[in-house]
Structures are given as C-alpha cells and as structure tokens.
C-alpha cells in the first residue's frame, strides 16, 4: 500500500501510470469457470476484475485478448474513454461476450484508480449513500419440494432474511392444472418453513411464456413474493411489459440486458420494477451506475445480479453503496471452499445478511495469488451448459 499512496500524492497519477499487461485468468472451480482480469501497471499497482460467463469461457478470454492490445501503454485512469473505445470502436457492439470482457477490464481499471488514489471505489462514484448493504441468498437447493423448503429453512437459521430460488423447470407454453398445483405446493412448503417475515424472491429464469407467467403469478400471489425475476425471456421487452401490466408481483429483470441501451425499452415500457444489471456483463461499474440513474427516473430499484465470485460481489457492493435506488444485492452462498480461499479479505457481516462498507482502496479485494495459480493450473474443464428439455425431447430454456 505504501507505494500506492506515494504515487497518488506525488503527482497527478493520470500522467504517470501506464498499463503494462492485461491478463485473463481462468479458474477451474465451482459452478462455472471463473474468469478474472488482471491489469498490471508500470507503477506496481495491479487491478482486478471479474468477467465470468457460464459456458463461454474461451470466447470471453479471446475477447479480453482482442482488447488487451489496445490497453497496453494506455493511462488506466481514463476509464470512460477506454470504455468508449472498447465498446464503440469494435463496430460490432455489445453482446454478452464482449460485454463481459469490457466489464471485467473496467472493474480492474476502477481497482487501479482506487488504489492509486488510496480510496475505495464507492468514494470515486460520489460517495456512500448508505451505511450498510443488504444481501440476499442465491442459495436454496434441492430437487424435491421438501428438500428445497428444508434448504430455505437452513439459510434462515444461518441468519438470512431474503432468499431467491428458481422453482420452475421446463414449463409448457400454457401451464396446466398439474404445473400450477405443483408450483403452489412448492411455495406453500417454503412459506411454511421460513415463516412470513423472510423475503422470498422467485427467479423464473425466462422459462415461462407470457401466458404461463401470468398464470403462475396469479397462482403464487398469496405467498407474498418479493419479486418475480425474468418471468419471460428478455428478447422482447414488450412481452415483459404485457406481463407487468397483468400481475401484481413486482417484476425484476436485467441480467441478460447489456449496456444502458439494453435497458432503455424496459424502462420506457414500464416492464420492470427492479433492474438487475450484472456488473460482469452489462459493461461494468460505471455503466451499471448509468443504468441505475435511468432507473431512478422511472422510480425503479436496483438489485445487481451476481451468481459469481466474491470479486464481483465486492465490485457490486461498491456500486450499491453509491446508488440511491439500490434495493438488495445478490450473493451466492455455496461457493466451494477452494473458491472462498482465493480471497484474503472477508466481508464484515452484520446480522440478517447485511455487510459493512469495504474501506480498503480500490475494489477492496485481495486475492491469494498462489491459490489463483493453483486453480488456473487444473486441467481445463470445458463444460457445456446445464440444460432442460421438454417431455418430447425438444429444447427448453434453461
């Protein structure tokens, strides 16, 4: 840290720092391969960011390498300018692959800047607007309704007050009496297990048709659902808006929308009450901050998507602290120990699933680089995606 502070206080850092290397790290562990981006500079500061993307590891690594060449020799503190160059000069803009590459790099640039200035990233985004951050557990697991309810209860016993689960699998375009009864049964068991004070979030994962989404929302109305995430696929925001117009459960969406432009129609159409940009895909921290500002205009809240490692969790918390319309932060509870061991800096937990603001410079994440290298050196695992199928063998959306 000493060297860092010297740089910041000696002279304008933007005139002094240059990017020397941009290195993607693929870690073979956990639910999906993790992709970290390391941005090295000539003053000894290293920034890190996360660009993990299920099923598309090689593509994201390739995209990072495509961009790396541009960044080397550049001043890492011109974050917005580099974003413009990375996004706009590609001509073939956007999409989740280049979006993830840019996002990981962008987080790393904020990390560099924060370390250079000796400030946590939230202080560079206008400063804290809250004293602590509420997290929800992406965590209940299980195959049978009873297992899921039991898993919910365990999380509540561990102190969580907000849980998210994905109760639907392959649902036909119109839900029949069996599907509706099953959904009600599952939710009844969960409510019975956790009681009425816990917030229960439902992730539909885009698996429902607009018709089935309305049917399901009506069937589950009485169980006091906190929000209904991606009730339909995000490709046509007007379909989402039709669902929003028909149901009373608030709608959340956004993990599969990228950049401010991707969110525009959702806001204009009133298709969602909560936006969930993922800071590893949407374009990064500053892009998410812009999306949040647009959401604020429409009285829409923010719940950043994050089923990834604690690196992205910390980047997200930096944004959450500086964002007035922040609602709740996603947190994956069941990383394997080998992933948790990558992180030398634990969260400071408060009761009920809240965390204290991180005050270390940059993103506030220190990696155990020996552990990183150990996972990197594992044999390459290239898994295709988990998948769902309809009963006749046709593809269902996962």
């Amino acid at each position: 840290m000493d060297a860092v502070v010297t740089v910041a206080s000696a002279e304008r850092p933007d005139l002094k720092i240059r990017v020397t290397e941009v290195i993607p790290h693929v870690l073979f562990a956990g639910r999906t391969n993790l992709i970290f981006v390391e941005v090295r500079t000539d003053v000894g500061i290293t920034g890190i960011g996360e660009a993990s993307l299920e099923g598309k590891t090689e593509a994201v690594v390739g995209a990072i390498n495509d961009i790396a060449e541009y960044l080397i020799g550049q001043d890492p503190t011109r974050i917005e300018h580099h974003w413009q160059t990375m996004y706009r000069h590609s001509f073939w803009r956007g999409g989740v692959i280049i979006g993830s590459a840019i996002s990981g790099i962008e987080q790393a640039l904020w990390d560099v800047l924060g370390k250079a200035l000796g400030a946590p990233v939230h202080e560079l985004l206008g400063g804290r607007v809250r004293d602590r951050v509420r997290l929800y557990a992406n965590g209940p697991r299980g195959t049978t309704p009873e297992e899921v309810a039991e898993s919910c209860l365990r999380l509540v016993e561990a102190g969580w007050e907000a849980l998210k689960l994905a109760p639907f699998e392959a649902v036909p375009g119109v839900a029949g009496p069996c599907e509706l009864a099953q959904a009600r049964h599952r939710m009844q068991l969960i409510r019975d297990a956790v009681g009425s004070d816990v917030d229960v979030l439902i992730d539909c994962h885009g698996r429902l048709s607009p018709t089935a989404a309305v049917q399901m929302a009506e069937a589950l109305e009485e169980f006091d659902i906190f929000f209904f995430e991606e009730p339909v696929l995000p490709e046509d925001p007007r379909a989402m808006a039709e669902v929003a117009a028909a149901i009373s459960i608030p709608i959340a969406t956004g993990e599969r929308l990228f950049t401010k432009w991707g969110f525009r129609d959702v806001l204009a159409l009133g298709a969602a009450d909560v936006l969930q940009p993922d800071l590893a895909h949407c374009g990064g921290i500053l892009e998410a901050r812009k999306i949040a500002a647009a959401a604020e205009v429409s009285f829409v809240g923010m719940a950043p998507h994050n089923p990834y490692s604690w690196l992205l969790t910390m980047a997200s918390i930096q944004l959450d602290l500086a964002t007035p319309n922040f609602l709740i932060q996603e947190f994956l509870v069941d990383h394997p120990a080998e992933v948790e061991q990558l992180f030398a800096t634990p969260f400071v937990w408060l009761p009920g699933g809240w965390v204290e603001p991180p005050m270390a410079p940059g993103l506030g994440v220190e990696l155990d680089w020996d552990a990183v290298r150990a996972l990197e050196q594992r044999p390459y695992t290239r898994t295709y995606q988990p998948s769902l199928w309809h009963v006749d063998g046709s593809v269902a959306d996962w």
Partner: protein
Amino acid sequence: MATSRKIIRVRTVAVGAGWRNYIFVLVDTDDGLTGLGEASLGAQTNAVLGAVKDLEPLLLGADPSRIEHLWQQAYRHAFWHGGPTFLSALAGVEVALWDIQGQALGVPIHRLFGGPVRDRIRAYANGPRGDTPEEMAQSAADLVTQGFTALKMAPWEAMPILASKGKIESGVAKVRAVREAVGAEVDLMVDAHGRLSPPVAVRAAIALAPFGITFLEEPCLPGNAAALVRIARKSPVPIAVGERHYTRWAFTELLDSRTIGVLQPDIIQGGGIAEARRIAALAEMHFVSVAPHNPWSWVNTMASLHLDAVLPNFLMQEVITDLEPWKDATVSHRPVIDAEGFFALPSAPGLGISLDIEAAKRFPPVEGRPPALWHDDGAVADW
C-alpha cells in the same frame, strides 16, 4: 432422415486481410464429409475463435443433420443468448452443417429451403471508395464497367451531434459526383454506418433525396428503435437497417413501426441461414424487402446466394468488390456477376464452395485493432 452420421471434428481457419481477419469454420463428419461456414467479425478474432471452441462439446458426436435442434441447444441452452460474437460463431457452424446436409443429399442448400423462387440474383457493390468526390466517381464508373447496376457508398466519417450544412455537404458532394458519373439508371445506396445523430440524419436524408437514392442505411446507431423510427418518418429516402440487429427478436419492433423499407440481416451476425430466412419471413408479413448484408469473403457470399434464391421479398445482394489477394486464393472458385450485374443460382451440392487450407496459410491472421474515427477534440467517434 435417419442417419448415423456424426460430427468428429470442428476446425477454424483465420485468414489475415489488413486490419481484420476472416474466420472460417470447418465441420468434419465420420464419413468423410466436410462442411464450410464463415464466422468473420471484424477484429474480434480471438473472441469468435473462442466462441467456436465453446460450442465443441455440443457438436462433437452429434448428428449434423439435426441443424435446428443443435441451433436451439446452442442458442437457448447457452442461457446467455446471442450477441454478435456468439452468433457469428454459431452461424459459421450452422452454415457448415447446411453444407454437409446439402452434400449428403446431393443438392444445393437452397433446395433444402423450398427451392429457388428466382432465376438469378441481383448484386450490388459495396464500393465505390475514395476520399474525394472525384475518386469516388472514378471508382463508381469502374464498378459499372464491371457490370454492377447498383452501388453503395459510405460518404461520411466522424460527424458531430449537430452538423452544419457544410459538414453534411462533405458527404453529399461525393454522392452527387457519383450520380453524375454513373447516370440516372444505376441504383445508388448510401450507408451512414450509424455515424449520424438523429437530427443530422434527417437533414442528410433530405439533402440526398434529389440524387435518387434507393436506400439510406443505418442513419443512426442501432440500440434505440424509436430514434430510427423518428428518422424514417421524416426521411424522403427509404431506410435500410439490420447488420447490427441480431436474431429475429431484434427486428420485431422496427417491423411493427411500419417505417422501415429494407432489412439487411447478415447471415453471420444474424445467427445463420435459417435465422435469416425467419427474419425475412417476418419482413414479408410487413411488406418489407430484404437485402442481406455481406462485406465478407466469397464463402458468406455463397451462403447469401442460397438465401437470396429462396426469398420472395429479396431485393439485392451486397458483395464487397475490393480485390484483396487472399479472397480468390483461399477458395475453390469465386462467384461472379454477369454483364447485367446478376449472380447465377448456386448449383453444386451443399454450399458450393470450398476452402483451400494450404493457400489460406499464406495469409496468417493479423493482430490488430479495428479502424477508428475520432472527433476533432480526440473523443471517440463511431466507425
């Protein structure tokens, strides 16, 4: 059709061509067939090559004739749908699968899509080129001599958010010079390349109208359909758009607006031949014509010709005419236009073109950033 054919290998070949690389996908089967597709995406070489690799676990061992089923799995089971990088990789694979299927059945791909609805396919040249009106005019005259009856040019570079008449005129002058050089009969199209703001685009369209412009392409950036619709309502020139709209879902709002004249899906970035066919069917519902985008190699040109053959609402086919040495050298043969500016229907089984891998090695991939435009103050401008 029941088949025991299996995919045993997926190969990629990147060919260097100036600042960018052309990416080819080869899919090999256990009975010795090889399908060819193109997955080029400007300078995003490593990303696309990676995306093809990511598809390997799905493809290896699969029956190559279940093209739609594999597409569904690749697109929908991916969860992270679409985007140009992924779709380019998927399209390269998809076209290779159609190539295999056509070869296996002994018919050109267009026969698998309902058969040709026309006898020949009108081409338009992505060209003329030139920094001055005089250079543009000369280049246009050369293209007409080659047989082209339709030409598309991109006359503007970096433009401010509001531009004076003089700035707009810098591009209009090139269009005027080309019109004077080629006469009244040739179709002229203008590609704004998304470089204009909506108000500048409206003024530019009005300034172009006297020169008889067949369509104005991408007057503003994609990403905001409402902005494009506002331009289209005011433009005296029909609006064309689509190379940066990926999959059919991206087109629905534009089509519903009933203001767009021409859709330009690209087989590569649009996700393949079948997806482009579906986009064209949506366009047909709205009385909109289709002019497939194609600034790529002869491989995607051939794929586009199969598509064009079967589309009732086809308008004309883009082809890039710059005679870079790699283009002819890397393929078995090039599709050519006749004296009236038409391509013949493809007639060989499958895609009807193959890659000369040994020749391709003479043009190794380049490391490079895409060409860039900058505003006067050093800020990024859209290329």
